[in-house]
Structure formats: C-alpha cells, structure tokens
C-alpha cells in the first residue's frame, strides 16, 4: 500500500513538473527559458531514477553506476560545448 502511495506521489510530482515546464515556456524567454527547462527536466529524471528505477532501494555501488552514466553524459555535453559555445568568438566553422 505504501509502495503504491510512493509511486502515486512521485507521479504527481512529475505531473506538477510537467505543468511547470509548460508554464515556464510561456513565461520565460531567451537563455533563462532553456536553463529552467533543463533544470526541470533534471528534476524529472531524478524522480524517475530514484523512485521508478528503484535507486532509493539500491546499495551505494549501483547508485554510483547510475551517477556515472549521468556524469559521462555531462562530459559529452560539456566538452562539446567548449566547441559550440566558443566557435563564433574564437574561430571555427559556423553555419
């Protein structure tokens, strides 16, 4: 019973965040819109990892593996951004 309650609560939180995403897209513009959307998406992903993918029940090693996957995605994005964010200012091919 309590497991179901937890899942329903997590789902409700995800729904709230969905509304927040939609709301933010109307209210915010420019870079802040992207930052907010990404932050909300991160929160959603965290909820899914923690509750639906049962990371809260797992030992530290399994959590470390999950964090590792996220960290590696971050490496891909951040180091790619050293190119994309600086290409117009510091030379390189632009469209």
């Amino acid at each position, binding site marked *: 019973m309590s497991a179901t309650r937890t899942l329903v609560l997590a789902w409700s939180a995800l729904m709230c965040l969905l509304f927040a995403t939609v709301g933010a897209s109307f209210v915010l513009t420019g870079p802040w819109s992207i930052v907010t959307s990404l932050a909300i998406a991160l929160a959603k992903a965290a909820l899914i990892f923690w509750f639906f993918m049962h990371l809260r029940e797992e030992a530290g090693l399994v959590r470390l593996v999950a964090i590792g*996957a996220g960290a590696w995605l971050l490496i*891909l994005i951040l*180091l790619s951004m*050293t*190119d994309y964010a*600086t*290409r117009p200012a510091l*030379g*390189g091919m632009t*469209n």
Partner: protein
Amino acid sequence: MTDSNALDSRPDRNDPHDPGLSETMTERESYLRAGHTLRSWLLTTDHKRIAILYLITVTVFFFIGGAAAVLMRADLVTPQGDLLSNEGYNRAFTLHGVIMVWFFLIPSIPTTFGNFLIPLMIGARDLAFPRLNLLSWYIYMLGGLFTIYVLIAGGVDTGWTFYTPLSSMFANGHVVLVAVAVFIVGFSSIFTGLNFIVTVHKLRAPGMTWGRLRLFIWSHYATSLILVLATPVLSMTLVLMAAERLFGIGVFDPKLGGDPILFQHLFWFYSHPAVYIMVLPAIGVASELVAAAAHKPIFGYWFVAGSSIAIAIISFLVWGHHMFVAGQSMYASAVFSFLSLAVAVPSGIKIYNWTATLYKGHIALDPPFFFAASFIGLFVVGGLTGLVVAMMAVDVHVHDTYFVIAHFHYIMVGGTVSAYFGALHFWWPKMVGRTYFLVWGRLTAIFIFLGFNLTFFPQYILGYLGMPRRYHVYDPAFQVLNVLSSAGASILAIAYVLPFAYLIYSMRYGDPAGPNPWGVTGLEWTVPSPPPKENFAEIPVVTTGPYDYPMELESRDG
C-alpha cells in the same frame, strides 16, 4: 567423428604420461572434451568454450580484414594504382577499417583471453551471466554476417569513420547496412563489458581482494567500463546518421539546421575511447607477460592498476583532437590538445613500471616475452607519435596523412596485435593442454616485429612528406617508400599465418603442457591444462597477492 574413431584405435589411450598422439587423462576430463557434438559447442555456456568460439571467429575476420589490406598494399606498389579502381580502393580501405576495428581489434583480447581467463584468474567457475556471454557471441556473429553480406553485395566507400555529409548525402553503397552491422555488434560489446564488470565485482574467490587481482583483470575492468559507457553513443550516432540518410532528418546537414561536426563529436566520443578498448586489454596482457618473463612481482602494482582506470577516464576527455582542422573552435582544440597530452602520463607510468619490473629479473627468453618486448617498443613509438599529432600546430601539417596511419597502426597493430599473439603464445598451452615449438614462436615474434616496422615506419616518412591517406594514385616521388611498406606487409602477412601451422600442429602432436609450463604464479596455472569444465574442483581461498615470486635476487645482490 573421425577424431573419436582415431582415439579409439590408439593403444595408449589409458596412459596419462604418453606424450604426442594420445589423449592425456587431463584432456579427457577437460572442457574441450565435455561434449563432442557441434550442438555442445554452439549452445555452450562455458566461458572457455565461448572463448574458443570467439577465437575462431575473430581469426576469420582478422584474415578477411587482412586480405583487404593486402589488396591495398599491392595496389600502392605503383603510383598509378594499377590493381584497383578508385571505387574499389575506397571500398577496400573501408572494409579493412570496419572489419579490423569492430570485428577484430575491439573483441579480440577481451572476448577470447578475457572470456577464457577472467573466471580462472579470480577463482570463479564462470562469468556472472553465462547465457548473456553466449548471446554476445551470437550477436557478434549476426553483425558479422551483415558485414559479410555487404562485402559480397558490393561494399561501402565512406571509410570506417562514416563522416557526414559523405555518408549521409553522397556515398553510394550499403552505408546503412554497415551501420546496422556496427550497431548490432555494439550490443555484443556492451554485453561482454557488463558481464566482466559484474563478474569482477561479484564472483571473486574468498580472499581475492581488489589488491590481489591480476593486472590483466584491472585492465579488462577498465576496458569494460569504456565498453559500457561509450558504445551506446556510437549506436545512437549511427542511428542519427542513418535517419538523416534515409529520411532527411536534419541533424548533421547544415541546410536542415544541423552541424556536420556534431557527427564527429559524437563519433569520436565513442571512437577515441574505443582506441583504449583495443589497447587496454593489450596493456593487461603485457603486464602479465612481463611479470612472467622476469619472474618478479610487477613494479608499482597500484600505479599500473590505477593507470588503467586513469586511461579509461581520460580517454573520454580527448576526442576533439581528431577535429583540429575540421572547423572546431580554437578554444576547444586547445582544451582537447592539453587533455590529449595528459594520456601520456598513465601510459608512461606503465612503460616505466614494466621496465623496472624487468630490471634484474630472471628473464625467460620465451616467445611470450618476445611479443611483450615487441609490444612495449612499438607502443612507445606509437604513443610518442601520438603526442606529436596531439599538438595542434603539427597536426595541421600531418592531419589525414600517412603519418596518422602509421601512428595508429603502431598502437593498434604493433601494440594490440603483438599483445594478442603474445597472449596466444602464453596461454595456448593452458587452452589446449599442449606445448608448441618455442623456436617457431620466437621466429614468428621476430618476423612480426621486422615486418611490422618495415610496413609502417616508411609511412611516418611518407606522411611527414605530405602523402595523404586514402589516395591510391600518388606522386611517383613516394614510390620507393610505398614499395618498402608493401614489402614489409608481405613479411607481416607470412608471419601472421605462421602460428596457424605450429599451433594447430601442437594440438595433436605437442607434448602435454602440465598445469604450469612457464613456472609462473596465478590461479589459472594451478588448474590442469586444459582446465576442467568447472575450472576448480574446489573454489580456492586466496591468501597471497598477485605475482608472488620469491625475491631472491635482491637478497643475493644486496
């Protein structure tokens, strides 16, 4: 069937000490004889049998990829490219790259020696997921069959790198089918990596702490991390490329709002770490062969182990060095150049520690040591020229020339293939239970070393003088060096075929090897050769560290 009839007719089949033709008692109780039918091999979940399946199939792909190289080297003997058409040459080097990278180098050491040895070295009866292990082989075969089909159906000419917009908009041939083949074989890699990681974490024998793991295990653990973390990115990238080619979805095409360099970012995020997928297992093999040859504990165990993990991590931070002249921003190039130079640190640690291990060792000049020494020398040359191409300014000069070809062949062929043959010569008696002619092993190692250098050293000079890669019609001024390179390739080809003869001969006529023919330490050498199906009659309790050799020399020399 013929074999069992022949065995039945032998008079000495009950004499376990009878060398040569007769089967020993150990062989009769080994994994090799645990089921004689084809079905018992094709449906096996025994890690040792799966290793043998992989050994046979990667060898087949090695020779298919090698055949493409032979065609290319023959074509390059004359500056006009008399043997192959332009299109044919493009298809030959693409096929060579695709097959050698994904169907030989990446699976080679992990799926054969890793599969065979990891459970034996950590004191387990099998890998954590034996059926997943078999599935990985079938998936590998499925990917391989796709590739063979493409080969028969006419090939592909994008190069193994599938760069857009060539692959997505212009190339003819079966680009999508090859991408599918590589996509499929990626799952095989992921399954193997996953299996190794879980096995090392969960199935170590009592007392087998992390500090008692062999360096072969550490390097395979590091390799597995890369396999699991990087391979999905390649799969996604190839899907995006195929989607753009088939449906015109704008990811890489600037006309549709895409960015062609994005393909290179995503591709090399996988493919640069993939270089370390290829070389880290070879590094693990070298550590084993060096310690075994010197009969000494490895110098700086934790540094060698830690540097494998460091290489695995740093390998993910360097991919942009492939794109210095591709239009990447100067800032990104500077960042990637600096990070690329950093890989030299853990690589250097290994080289120095191997050298220090050999210092004052009782070095056994057996074939495995010849291959290990060859590996170290070639890896150093390949690694140092890697530093050359990691420098932005020099890379502008040598990018896309034969200098780069020579550099990565020194790492992948000089390094990995030498280590692969070293591993084959070191663990062959364990795998089949028979010894081979050591003198032939030594000769092969020497021929490979000489043939390799004659093939690839001239390519450094060619590249530095400006001969671009992937051209088959070239300036006649480059002919002498190209002929030298092709001559070297023919020596190399013969040297690669040689072991076939004496290793297969040894399976039937070699002397029984005994459990520990090299007189070295390690759990795999405590079990009979070839090992029984269940590896250990009783799971061992480990009480000592790895490479537990007596330190008599130090005490004698003061």
